[in-house]
């Protein structure tokens, strides 16, 4: 067909989402010699991975892996990234897409040295989404100390207030620009990779597991922030109710996952995440007791299996086969009793613990907000890859629940798919 000989109108690639998958796709494609635009809706790159304390199974901090990628971005002139940027509209066909991207103002320009004077000057405090609201931050803030781009953000919530003025006055480098306007950028690209990632399933919807009703019931992502040195407690795992380090913790697996009433699929990572978090607690308190309530433990592959075995060998980690279906709070101690049937012994267990972690699953961001492009989704909101049609691809958790390793493998593959779109036409 003659069509195949037609050069694509554009030989650039757009990657949507600057989490671990998007970073990988963008960097791999750029390093292969293609022009790449990476757009990220948050003021920083790194996505969900940036919020983690450690990766499983090696238990290394994610900033380590992210830093290498940020280095690669800095070194590559073919890769241009935009934060606070969201795709507004996509038209065209494989080889020739016109994309408009809306850039929300950061109110801080490239002069920023991260001195923090603006945050000191700002009096208003806002909820910190990065820490799931577990602490307040100033209206002028650095998302986290390893944030890339390494630049403060002025929250739109304080724009127009005296606080914004104070920030501007405090800045010695003329970095605060309060008159920054939202702008729209247009890109012509040959292919698009959607790496729009995931969000934790809203645990409050699982009404029998007490999240939002009892303070000592937290989610696994909150647990990551509690354990992280840059988190709200500087890495101390403590109960939200009273700041006490819990001596016993129950992990509730499949909290919302594999459940027709919530997420019908297995979220893939929660078993490993709980095993990992059990280790966080055990490292900090050698006497702490951990109870993991599960339906099936899923530790796929030899490395994960080994990790699971390590947890099983720990005499203070107890595995109970049976899903927690009821939680009760003791009004005085704020301790939680979780109720499950041990399906092995056939006994109903009422385990009293000081804190509960719900191993909530991952929901694609596209489950709650569909993208402004011609894409097909599963019933659960994951993007279905249409390789027949090509041109646009979903990478990482936008396509299916996955861990970091599989996301990276998948993202690399999608970089190649995006490149193939450019060269075969």
């Amino acid at each position, binding site marked *: 067909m003659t069509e195949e000989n037609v050069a694509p109108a554009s030989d650039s690639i757009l990657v949507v989402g600057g989490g671990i998958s998007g970073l990988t796709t963008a960097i791999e494609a750029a390093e292969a010699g293609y022009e790449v635009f990476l757009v990220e809706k948050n003021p920083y790159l790194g996505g969900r991975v940036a919020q983690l304390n450690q990766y499983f199974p090696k238990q290394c901090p994610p900033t380590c892996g992210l830093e290498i990628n940020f280095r690669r971005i800095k070194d590559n002139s073919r890769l241009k990234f935009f934060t606070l940027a969201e795709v507004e509209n996509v038209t065209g066909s494989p080889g020739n897409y016109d994309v408009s991207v809306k850039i929300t103002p950061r109110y801080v320009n490239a002069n920023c040295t991260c001195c923090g004077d603006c945050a000191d000057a700002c009096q208003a405090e806002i909820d910190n989404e990065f820490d799931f609201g577990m602490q307040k931050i100033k209206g002028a803030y650095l998302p986290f100390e390893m944030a890339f781009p390494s630049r403060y953000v002025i929250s739109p919530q304080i724009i127009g207030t005296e606080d914004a003025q104070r920030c501007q006055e405090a800045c010695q480098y003329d970095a605060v620009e309060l008159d920054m306007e939202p702008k729209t950028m247009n890109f012509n690209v040959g292919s698009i990779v959607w790496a729009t990632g995931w969000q934790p399933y809203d645990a409050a919807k699982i009404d*029998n597991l007490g999240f939002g009703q009892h303070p000592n019931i937290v989610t696994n992502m909150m647990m990551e922030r509690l354990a992280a040195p840059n988190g709200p407690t500087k890495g101390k795992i403590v109960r939200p109710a009273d700041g006490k380090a819990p001596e016993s913790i129950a992990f509730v697996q*499949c909290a919302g996952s*594999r*459940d*027709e*009433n*919530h997420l019908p699929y297995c979220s893939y990572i929660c078993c490993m995440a709980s095993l990992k978090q059990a280790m966080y607690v055990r490292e900090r308190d050698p006497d702490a007791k951990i109870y993991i309530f599960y*339906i*099936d433990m899923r530790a796929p592959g030899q490395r994960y299996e080994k990790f699971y075995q390590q947890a099983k060998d720990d005499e203070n980690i107890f595995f109970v*086969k*049976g*899903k*927690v*279906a*009821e939680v009760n709070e003791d009004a005085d101690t704020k301790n939680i009793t979780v*109720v*499950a*049937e*041990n*399906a092995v012994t*056939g*006994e*109903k267990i009422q385990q009293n613990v000081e804190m509960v972690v719900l191993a909530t699953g991952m929901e694609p961001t596209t489950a709650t907000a569909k993208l402004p492009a011609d894409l097909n989704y599963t019933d659960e909101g994951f993007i279905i890859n249409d390789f027949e049609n090509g041109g646009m691809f979903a990478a990482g958790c936008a396509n299916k629940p996955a861990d970091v390793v599989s996301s990276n493998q998948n993202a690399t593959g999608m970089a190649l798919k995006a490149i193939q779109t450019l060269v075969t036409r």
Partner: protein
Amino acid sequence: MADTYVAEPDLGFIKEVGALGGADLKKCYQCATCSVACPISPDNKPFPRKEMIAASWGLKDKLISDYDIWLCHNCGDCNTRCPREAKPGEVLGAIRAYAVGEYATPKALSKAIANPKMLPVLLAIPAVIILVMGFIFNSFGLNWLNFSIPAGGEIWQANFIHNYLVDIIMIPTFFGAIAVFALGLKRFLADMHAQAVADGKAKDEKIDFGKVGQAVVSTVLTIIKHNKFSECGENKERSTAHMLVLFSFIGLFIVTNCFFIAEWVLHIEGPYSQLNPVKWLGNAAGVALVVGGILLLRNRMTKKDQASSYWDWYLVGLVLVLGLTGMLTQMARLAGMAGISYTLYFVHLIFVWSLFAYTPFSKLAHLVYRTAAMTYAEYTNRQ
């Protein structure tokens, strides 16, 4: 493992449980949410998780002798919480239906009663019995079945079908049903006890009859007060419907016995005055039966997530038809509509006979098996 257990799967059983309303059984992945969601499940070996796996393995013998299936009141809390929509409550209901069929003799009748296509035949049986018996007695000059009632006279059912004829048919049927129940119950009790001893749910193999007596009393009180129903989260409203139907059946049983004594012992002929206290009870019970039947129907119609099989509809229909034909017979009589009253009475008798004869084979058999299971649970202090 020291004690191995060889499962003997009965594939036919799995299929039947599916047909009886447990079609989603195989969706179960044994998370055990149901056992916790159930408000009346005991802490030691709770149901229905273990029943779900036993059913999907086709362990028929284990299940029909498992009295836990009868402790379930099918409130639906487990169905709501089930992450797989496997409907454990429906599965247990289906196993109960299967167990009723297993313990009732003859089996052919069990099969017929579970089969909607056989309903016309089953209803024709009492009609034929009444007619044939009537003609036989008529041939002896007793004239107990009278199709030529002179118009204008007092309307009274007995003028059409004599009470003696009714009683001669109904009483043996009633005791026949009791006999079928007795046979089934004997086997059920033996199986249940053996299984409970094997599972460690009952500590002592020997039965202490004094304790059984106490258990009967407290179980009957529990049933009368509908304590188990009120523990349920979902479908609490079923308690009212069940209470109305149960109490009206008890009331009607008392009324029937009173008038039986009036007829056979005291030789007082009806129709009885509406001022008679026994009549009050009869009317109150009749109204309660109709209202209860309508509530049963409404609950089943509005509850979309609860499957209703023919097994369930049979009982709802029976209750409603019994109540309606009974009340309407009397109303037509008082309104002077002789033909309608007599026709309805004939229909009413067909259903009364069906109630007696088919109860050991139908869902209504739960009145015996559930009471027995609850008593046994009380006796073994199942908690």
